């Protein structure tokens, strides 16, 4: 009897030679996989840099970034109109999208009836599941004609503001920014919800116990705690807006010049790649310039996402002094 038990245990013992070997093989193959992926991503970056080499050599990196002249017919590739378009549309997206996303997240986590919280969150997340090309289709045929009168009114009424007055074109920066705002709302909102959920319940209940109203509780306990997280969420949204391609390509107007105001047509880095790719033959300078535009896009998103990570790390490292609960008398 005893010998049977020992034989079973011996069979199953982890340090038998075959089991050890199997474990080593398993571990090694996973390590190789991990190394391959790291190498692949490094190769990714290098390959794009090599392929965009001819364009940078022809134009010079600084001229490529900051020269305001994108003239394919004459092989002139100054991508500033595209960079500017990317920055303008992303800025519009942040200005419109972030307040909506954060207030929606606050409502869902702090004010909505508990039974409605999850359905509301799932519904809002569905916005992120709508494909980019469908937003583009909707933008072209619904949003542009629907908003034209409103844009004209805005443009005329607020003409005294910089970058507002002027003839409204159908596809324009504002429409592109608005669609980008719709696309980043679910992302910013979802991350903000997660951040807000980590606010210690003691602080919220403490605020309420001291007589704070719901809003004062949010302002004094929730927001100070989640400020870094919300900033980081906004940066991730910005990264998404910068790289968004198809929807923007359909509603930006495809004019490789810097528009005079936000209701003017323009272009973005991502949109120019999608639209002009078909005309750029393999090996041409044009193609190399488009790949260079992709590389600039890549680096921009890396920077933005890096900042997002840095904000979170800094907040995590900093000693969280509990914010003083001050309730107005």
């Amino acid at each position, binding site marked *: 009897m005893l010998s049977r038990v020992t034989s079973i245990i011996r069979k*199953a*013992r*982890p340090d038998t030679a075959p089991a*050890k070997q*199997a474990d080593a093989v*398993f*571990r090694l193959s*996973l*390590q190789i*996989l*991990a190394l391959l*992926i*790291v190498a692949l*991503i490094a190769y*990714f970056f290098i*390959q*794009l840099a090599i*392929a965009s080499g001819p364009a940078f050599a022809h134009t010079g990196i600084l001229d490529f970034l900051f020269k305001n002249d994108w003239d394919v017919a004459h092989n002139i590739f100054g991508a500033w109109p595209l960079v500017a378009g990317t920055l303008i549309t992303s800025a519009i997206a942040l200005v419109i999208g972030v307040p*909506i*996303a954060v*207030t*929606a997240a*606050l409502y*869902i986590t702090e*004010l*909505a009836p508990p039974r409605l919280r999850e359905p*509301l969150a799932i519904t*809002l997340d*569905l*916005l992120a*599941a*709508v*494909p*980019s*090309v*469908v937003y*583009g*289709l*909707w933008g072209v*045929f619904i949003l542009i004609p629907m908003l034209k009168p409103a844009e004209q009114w805005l443009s005329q009424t607020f003409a005294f503001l910089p970058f507002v007055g002027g003839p409204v074109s159908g596809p324009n920066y504002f429409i592109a920014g608005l669609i980008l705002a719709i696309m980043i*709302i679910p992302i910013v*909102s979802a991350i903000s919800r997660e951040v807000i959920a980590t606010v210690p319940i003691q602080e919220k209940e403490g605020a309420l116990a001291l*007589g704070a*109203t*719901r*809003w*004062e509780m949010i302002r004094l306990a929730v927001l100070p705690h989640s400020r870094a997280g919300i900033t980081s969420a906004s940066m991730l949204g910005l*990264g998404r807006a*910068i*790289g968004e*391609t*198809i929807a923007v390509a*359909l509603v930006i107007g495809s004019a490789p010049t810097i528009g005079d105001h936000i209701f003017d047509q323009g272009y973005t880095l*991502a949109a120019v790649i*999608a639209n002009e*790719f078909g005309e750029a033959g393999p090996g041409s300078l044009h193609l190399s310039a*488009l*790949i260079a535009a*992709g590389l600039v896009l890549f680096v921009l998103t890396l920077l933005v*996402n890096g900042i997002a990570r840095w904000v979170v790390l800094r907040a995590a490292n900093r000693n969280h002094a509990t914010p003083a609960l001050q309730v107005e008398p």
Partner: protein
Amino acid sequence: MSVNVLRTTTARRRRTDQLARWALLAGLILALVPLVLVLLFVIIRGAGALDLHFFTTDPTGAFFGNQGGIKSAILGTVEIVALATAITVPVGIGLAIYTCEVGRQSKLAMAVRYFIDVLTGVPSIVFGLFIYTVLVVSGVFGGFAAWKGSIALALLMLPVVARASEISLMLVPDSLREAALALGVPRWRMIMQVVLPTAFTGLLTGILLAVTRAAGETAPLLFTVLGAQGTTFGLGDQMNSLPLQIFNDVRQPNPELVTRAWGAALTLITIIFIINITARLATRRNRIQ
């Protein structure tokens, strides 16, 4: 002296509170309005295009007359995304096992986590450009091909699958691992037969969410599979897909082709929403258990 809690809340503060509550509710409504508007118009404009002919014929490429349906686009999307999933699932879960079970805090594991984070932020069009320069221009097994599109989509799905898998592996209690090891099970069998099955729902959710993201992507496919009219089951051929079909039809100055785009959009959104909601409900049930 009786203490009245409510008296400490002045009328002004109560008004501010009410105002703030309405403002937050307004934010939520503003966030939901676009979803309603998009769905509404996609259904209104798209439903008219749907009939048997629409799903059973390929686009003919004709501008007038019989323009055909979207059969090749639906099948193409299924094929390209299926191959991308087949590539990305073993790699993504493998990476998650590595970072969570094997490498843990090692330098390589940290590097993998960092690079996965980097991949998350890469615009989808850049994946397309990368595969275009590496596989299409260099002419590996011909030019544009469906499998190259699948690889571009697999790169896009990888961070989603890897991160979701890592999180669900971390949720597996250590007591289960220790119990398996104490029974004398070798580590690899412990992972394959105890940890992975326990984390199954979480893994599945990550995969399904990655699938919905990939199914809707246009930009990476533009440079890799290019597009086609007819149905094909050859993964080495150029292929049609729903997003490509929509992107091409949107830009046609012909209302009938635009209607086909709306119909294709309705089809695509229906597929994506069904998968997406299934995925979310699966984790939700899991969490309650």
